[in-house]
């Protein structure tokens, strides 16, 4: 640090060059540093959001003129059975995805030991998160294949009949969620492993002295200390569940007959395959509004921390 504080004189400029820039440096510099990211973000993120909302008030096939129809797209959406199928599936995703923090925590507790080779073991457990959802989707489609998938091999081995999870309207969403949980549990596990590293050993010792062990120990001493990890795990899991698209697109395309569709896929399908840009934009807007609840929740707690 000292080396930097007594930084070379050459860094400072001669006073002669005190230009406009130099005089306003402290205001201009941050503007300059901010502007590229800000410009990119405004162009490709903020403006498209507003534009999508605007498009949602139109009927547009992506080719001809946009016809303003006010709230008609929303009216149609709220009376569209498919919308409720997608919404209910998103809720299924949301609820079942919350198994990921739980599963991640259990694995993390299981693996939280100091032993030679544990680092590699932990890395291998984390592995599923690093690979693409496309690959995860391929792997699980195969696992579920009614003819030769491992699932039926196992079911038959224990005397149960074969099933076709991806072809059955009652099973399909759950089958896809299981595939999604695999990498998501890995993600949560890593969050908790890091959290466990930072657990205060003195508190644990003190609790042990008081005869605290087993579940009360976990519940009263450990879990509160893992709160930051839990917070992040829950946030990323909820966002992941609402954003679900890749696995649905890869494993079923929303089928059979839309029974596994989610809002993200429903929107994509309406816009790309049915050429209904306005309707698609309306679905996207609804999804966006739902997610805003969680985004606001995250923002508030993040900024509150900031204020402290």
């Amino acid at each position: 640090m000292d080396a930097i504080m007594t930084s070379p004189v050459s860094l400072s400029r001669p006073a002669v060059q005190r230009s406009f820039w130099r005089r306003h440096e402290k205001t201009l510099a941050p503007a300059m540093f901010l502007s590229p990211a800000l410009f990119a973000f405004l162009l490709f993120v903020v403006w498209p959001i507003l534009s999508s909302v605007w498009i949602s008030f139109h009927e547009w096939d992506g080719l001809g003129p946009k016809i303003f129809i006010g709230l008609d797209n929303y009216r149609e959406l709220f009376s569209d059975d498919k919308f409720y199928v997608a919404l209910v599936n998103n809720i299924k995703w949301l609820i079942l995805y919350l198994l990921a923090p739980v599963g991640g925590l259990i694995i993390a507790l299981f693996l939280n030991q100091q032993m030679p080779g544990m680092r590699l073991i932990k890395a291998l457990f984390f592995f599923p998160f690093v690979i693409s959802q496309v690959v995860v989707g391929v792997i699980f489609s195969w696992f579920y294949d009614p003819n030769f998938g491992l699932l039926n091999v196992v079911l038959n081995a224990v005397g149960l009949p074969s099933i076709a999870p991806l072809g059955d309207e009652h099973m399909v969403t759950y089958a896809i969620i299981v595939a999604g949980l695999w990498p998501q549990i890995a993600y949560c596990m890593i969050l908790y492993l890091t959290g466990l590293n930072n657990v205060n050993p003195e508190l644990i010792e003190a609790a042990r002295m008081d005869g605290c062990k087993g579940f009360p120990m976990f519940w009263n001493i450990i879990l509160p200390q893992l709160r930051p990890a839990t917070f992040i795990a829950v946030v990323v899991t909820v966002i992941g569940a609402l954003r679900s698209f890749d696995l649905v697109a890869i494993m079923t395309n929303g089928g059979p007959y839309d029974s596994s569709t989610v809002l993200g896929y429903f929107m994509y399908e309406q816009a790309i395959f049915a050429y209904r840009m306005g309707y698609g934009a309306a679905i996207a807007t609804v999804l966006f509004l739902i997610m805003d609840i969680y985004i606001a929740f995250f923002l508030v707690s993040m900024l509150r921390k900031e204020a402290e």
Partner: protein
Amino acid sequence: MSKFLRFATTAFFAVSLSTTALAGTLVINSDQSDPAPRKGMEALIEKFKKENPDIDVKLNVFDKESYKTSIRTWLSGESPDVVYWYAGERMKFFVDRKLFEDVSDVWAANKGAEAMPSTVGSVTVDGKQYGVPYTYYNWGIYYRKDLFEKAGIQQPPKTWAEFLDACAKLKASGVAPIVIGSKALWPTAGWFDYLNLRVNGMDYHMKLMAGQVPYTDKGVKDVFDKWAELIRPGYFIENHASYTWQESQPLFYQGKGAMYLIGNFITPEFPADVRDKMDFFQFPKIADQPMYEDAPTDTVHIPARAKNKVDAKKFLAFYMRPDVQTELNSVLRQIPTNKDAKPSDDRFLQAGYKMLSAAAGTAQFYDRDTDPSLAQEGMKAFQEFMIIPDRGDEILTRLEARRKQVFKQ
């Protein structure tokens, strides 16, 4: 003009020339992305280049599914000079929006109407031609002769009663009578098309496609009733919603299923060891209707905003030629539209060719004949019906609501 300006303008022209506007550059966008057809197309383009050494051809090949979306982008913006597309309603959609060039002059100059009598109608709107059809193919029921024999079926069924009887016998002999893979939806539409054509005839079918008949009409219900006669006894393979049409094929080849209603494009996929056991029959007769067929036709068009229409027309004329079509279709293993071109002597193709020549009329295919967004919903409805036939009425009511919306009635 300042030096800089001059430099800038020169540079600008140099850039624009090198990308698009160079006279003699012909930009072709194709969706023939499967390896074999792609190779065939490329060979033909070489041939075209040899005959027209002054034209520099640039071929862009796209994946079939995304092509359907992105063609809209090109046609209304930076247009290529030639696009591959489909005849019938699919073409008319762009013609109505004035995005395809009228090429009646190319037809007239090359006596197209006489050379391609069976398909000229599929590219004609209000008496004008908007593209060139270069290939089409038949649909029909491909079946395993050995399994038929084993089940005691003497000859391929010609009527609905015989068909049901054959299904029952096949099922009794321990094979699934009908193979289908409905995961990608469209194979279900083959069944709907044929049942509708056989039960209600071509006029009715086309009216339904054009949105002029409600899906809750008695005619459509009759079609579903006939369909249910196959679904309820379990004549279709189990779990068909888990397979694409490709994934379902092994069941056919392994002898677990006996029949497959599909396009002629399946025949190159037959493995050598079962090829001889395969044969083909026309979809059986149901009501008193002439025999209509599905015969999807593929086409080439010139976008209205193309830059090099002169050379594009040369290319379209080239695609009309019998020798070119013979060569092209031998690669595609499909049927040339030009009657002077020779379809390959493959027995399946010959049978299909014969059947189409005798057809009382042809349809393009469900997802080419009706509005694309309705087609998507329709095919999902068929898939659902094939899994849960009890929902038939409910499914049709839902589909009818969509029709009303799409066709604004």
